[in-house]
């Protein structure tokens, strides 16, 4: 009976609330005496400001990869947040974080409740990549890299006799700055207009490569680009649904659409002393979309839909075929730019029904299309890596249509047991590729149980099958191996399973999670042959007394793949196979102790992570050429201890210490000095290795009243 009443109350409240958001409540309850006199609504300015300092004891790009603490030294810890409100409902609030770091961000929001809200925000994201790299190149202007005037070109790196004296250290990384603004206006109770704008500026450099035929070089490629995005539209809601019409626009503007670099090698042709690469072209995209749903009057049904049409454009002027005037003279550009014309379509609809509290189901339809209508681009020849004339070439345009139909049903068989099943058909039609179509059929069963007490078990098992149809190798100037199958266009059989378990014996809270998947490309003699992925994780937490809690967590994953190939030269061939196994293990633990003596909070966290990647190669002849690669490994140990002390109701003092140790071994870069390889002028990054301590102290002061005063 009690449950009946509760269910009725829930249903009534939901219906009443859904019936509209008028000033008077739709339940018809006379609330004229509900003065809410004891409600401590915010009426004044309230704020909290933090001022402190941090000290980092070692330089490390990897440690500072995304936190900006990559340089040894002191950093200011400055943050603040606050806001004010009036009885009429106007308000403002701000949030300033990490003002003394390269991760600084600021957000300011103001408006009037239920009418209008505007926001401004600013955000910086550092991405430090390498601080162990060196190069002989110096930047000249925004789009050229020059070698020293006394550079000595060589047929290989060993012939570059001025290299050692020309090398200078250079850091690699970027800074991404985002500024944005948004405005939302509520026209009456049901109609809302909104507009958001953001601009990302990305500046810095990346470790890039280029080549002159079979001679390669690495250099610090400058990055200077901006990305503007706008989304604007209106949402109308009514008693039984909503509709949203929106427009999304994106414009990417690259200031480095071409980069010229000196050729450090002896040129293949007399005037190919430089090379030039194209940067990412300026481009635009937009999408017009209609979204919404209908709450249908039977079976608690909801029909959700989305109709979206978009375009992608690109009209960046083409560069010449080469820096070499002589080579350029040998062939003509068909036109001055690509004038790319790609349209996208996305149509989706899903119907969910709940004919009874114990039964629910949904069916969905999704259609995605990328239609590349760019005009044909064919040349009678091109210049390969600013060195020699290549064969005639034609740019293939890629389009696809993807149609998916899926369904899922679940029955709560008993109060403690729900069983469900689902299936999906996924057809992908491609143009100008090895297969015209792949079709995947996927099905699965699910079970959710609460057999007794706090135990919850969720499980899923299923399989999938991809049929790729005829596979036709596309002819090119160099013949592709007809036995090789590109894995995204190959037949595939898959099995997958997931299991989650949660229970709380005594005071413990235990959460376990595992998954398994296996992909077999049975019709692929060469290429990716199989992939297997299993992983599990668990967390145990427990309160200790009234004020403290402890936790332990860990995870393990193992991803193994097999691939096969055939080394083919005109007069001979040999088969080979490579097995990869990526293992990843994490462990952690910690404790939180709050309000010790009513004034002190303490937190301790330890994190461990290790990745290993054994690779084993096998070749049929000579078999001794195969074997295991040197170990790939990373290992992270991190400890963070923080504490705070409430000096009084307004002032809090905090202190924190972080120690993080990271080591790695990576044969792909270890020992590869600038001239180690005859045909690769390397920037010689070292595998990451650091041990960093960070200590900090801060003071936080609270202004104004609080909700609990």
């Amino acid at each position, binding site marked *: 009976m009690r449950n009946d009443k509760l269910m009725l109350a829930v249903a009534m409240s939901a219906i009443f609330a859904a019936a509209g958001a008028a000033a008077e409540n739709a339940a018809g309850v006379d609330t004229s005496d509900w003065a809410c006199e004891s409600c401590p609504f915010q009426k004044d300015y309230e704020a909290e400001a933090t001022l402190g300092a941090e000290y980092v004891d070692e330089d490390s790009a990897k440690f500072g990869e995304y936190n900006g603490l990559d340089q040894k030294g002191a950093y200011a810890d400055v943050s603040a947040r606050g806001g004010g409100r009036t009885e009429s409902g106007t308000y403002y609030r701000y949030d300033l974080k990490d003002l003394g770091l390269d991760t600084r961000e600021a957000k300011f929001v103001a408006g009037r409740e239920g009418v209008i809200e505007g926001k401004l925000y600013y955000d910086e994201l550092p991405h430090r990549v390498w601080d162990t790299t060196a190069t002989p190149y110096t930047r000249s202007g925004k789009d050229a890299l020059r070698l020293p005037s006394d550079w000595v070109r060589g047929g290989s790196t060993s012939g570059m006799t001025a290299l050692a004296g020309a090398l200078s250290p250079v850091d690699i990384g970027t800074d991404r700055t985002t500024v944005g603004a948004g405005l939302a206006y509520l026209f009456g109770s049901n109609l809302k207009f909104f507009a958001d704008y953001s601009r990302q500026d990305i500046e810095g450099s990346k470790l890039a490569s280029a080549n002159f035929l079979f001679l390669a070089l690495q250099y610090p490629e400058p990055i200077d680009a901006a990305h503007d995005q706008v989304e604007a539209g209106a949402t109308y809601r009514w008693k039984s649904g909503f509709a949203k019409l929106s427009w999304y626009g994106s414009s990417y503007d690259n200031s480095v659409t071409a980069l010229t670099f000196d050729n450090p090698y002896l040129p293949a042709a007399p005037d190919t002393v430089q090379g030039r690469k194209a940067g990412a072209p300026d481009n635009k995209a937009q999408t017009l979309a209609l979204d919404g749903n209908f709450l249908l009057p039977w079976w608690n049904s909801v029909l959700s839909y989305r109709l979206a049409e978009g375009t992608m454009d690109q009209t*960046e002027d083409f560069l010449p075929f080469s820096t070499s005037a002589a080579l350029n003279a040998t062939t003509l550009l068909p036109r001055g730019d690509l004038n790319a014309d790609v349209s996208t379509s*996305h149509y989706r609809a899903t119907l969910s029904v709940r004919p009874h509290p114990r039964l629910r189901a949904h069916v969905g339809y999704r259609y995605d299309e990328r239609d590349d209508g760019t005009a044909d681009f064919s040349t009678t020849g091109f210049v390969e890596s600013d060195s020699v004339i290549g064969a005639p070439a034609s740019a293939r345009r890629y389009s696809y249509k993807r149609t998916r139909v899926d369904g899922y049903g679940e029955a709560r068989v008993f109060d403690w047991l729900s069983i469900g099943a689902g299936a999906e058909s996924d057809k992908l039609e491609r143009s100008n590729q090895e297969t015209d179509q792949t079709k995947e059929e996927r099905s699965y069963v699910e079970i959710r149980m609460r057999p007794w007490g706090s135990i919850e078990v969720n499980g899923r098992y299923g399989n999938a099958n991809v049929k790729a149809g005829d596979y036709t190798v596309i002819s090119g100037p160099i013949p592709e191996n007809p036995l090789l199958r590109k*894995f995204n266009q190959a037949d595939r059989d898959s099995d997958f399973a997931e299991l989650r378990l949660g229970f709380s014996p005594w005071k413990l809270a235990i959460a376990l999670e595992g998954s398994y998947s296996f992909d077999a490309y049975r019709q692929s003699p060469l290429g990716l042959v199989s992939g297997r992925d299993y992983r599990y994780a668990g967390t145990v937490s427990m309160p200790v007394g009234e004020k403290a809690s402890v936790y332990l967590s860990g995870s393990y994953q193992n991803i193994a793949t097999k691939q096969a190939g055939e080394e083919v030269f005109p007069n001979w061939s040999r088969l080979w196979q490579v097995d990869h196994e990526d293992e990843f293990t994490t462990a952690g633990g910690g404790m939180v102790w709050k309000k010790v003596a009513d004034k002190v909070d303490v937190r301790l966290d330890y994190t461990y992570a290790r990745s290993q990647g054994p690779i084993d190669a096998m070749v049929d002849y000579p078999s001794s050429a195969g074997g295991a690669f040197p170990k790939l490994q990373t290992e992270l140990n991190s400890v963070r201890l923080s504490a705070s002390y409430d000096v009084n109701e307004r002032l809090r003092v905090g202190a924190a210490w972080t120690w993080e140790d990271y080591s790695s071994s990576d044969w792909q870069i270890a020992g590869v000095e600038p001239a180690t390889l005859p045909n690769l002028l390397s920037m010689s990054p070292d595998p990451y290795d650091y041990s960093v301590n960070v200590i900090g102290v801060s003071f936080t002061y609270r202004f104004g009243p609080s909700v609990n005063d």
Partner: protein
Amino acid sequence: MTRRVWSHALAVLALGCLQASVALAEDKPADEAPSYSKNGADTCLNCHGGDPAVMGIFRTKHAQPGDPRTPFGHGQLQCEACHGPGGAHTKRPKKGEQRTPVVQFGRGKASTIDEQNPMCLACHNSHLGNWHVSAHSDNGVGCADCHQAHDALDPVRDKATQVDVCRKCHQLPVADSLLPFAHPLREGQMACSSCHSPHGSLADASLKRDTINETCYTCHADKRGPFLWEHQPVSEDCTLCHKPHGSSQAGMLTQRPPFLCQQCHGAQGHPSVPGLPAGVAGGSNPSAYLLGSGCANCHSQVHGSNHPSGTWLTR
């Protein structure tokens, strides 16, 4: 195999229908409407007003008297807008009986998810248009499993703390953020909701944009093109080569070059040459096909090239 799964599924559904039909017959409607409290929030706060966790609601969007849409807007039902009619709850229970509950939010509480979520969805349908078909809904996740409605600094709405909320159920993808190459979730510079819509979407994996690629382009527009010379998997699906939750390989690649490239390319000549241990630095035959960036030492424009001479993605 697929047929077998389907036959099992149909059997299960048939059993479920049978069981549900029995349950339907047993369910009886309530015979009286519940009553509301006498003085709304003032009644509630007589008992609950000393609890800081409760009072936090007055610093949130839900407690704005100037906004008629909110529970504390003029004429609205205040605490009972979400917790349901509290008339019976305010009455002293008879000896030996428990107090009549209101709707309680959170996992392990007396109210089921089916009782909790409709309270939120009644107002938030237009914001959560795809909740009904979301993975979270399918798995019985309650709004309050993630949201702290009484907390002005709801952790799940802050990118620096959101991952700790998601971790409670999604331990495996969050563990991936500790991999050597990962998006900056661990540093709190991105959140799961930077890419995913936890309230559901009609896209794969509840992504915020229509496709995986369009989601990636919001930050990586330089990869969008369209390029003169396109690399087919790039325009189709970024995850064919990248693992967005993190990877042991630089660039969050699924595998390092040359092996990754050779999963699709085996043309006569150097693309078919196997990477072998002898090719590492200090080996008998150090190889630029293997070291540095592998294939990308020369074919560096793997995302596409707009250079007329970029046929082989070198320029």
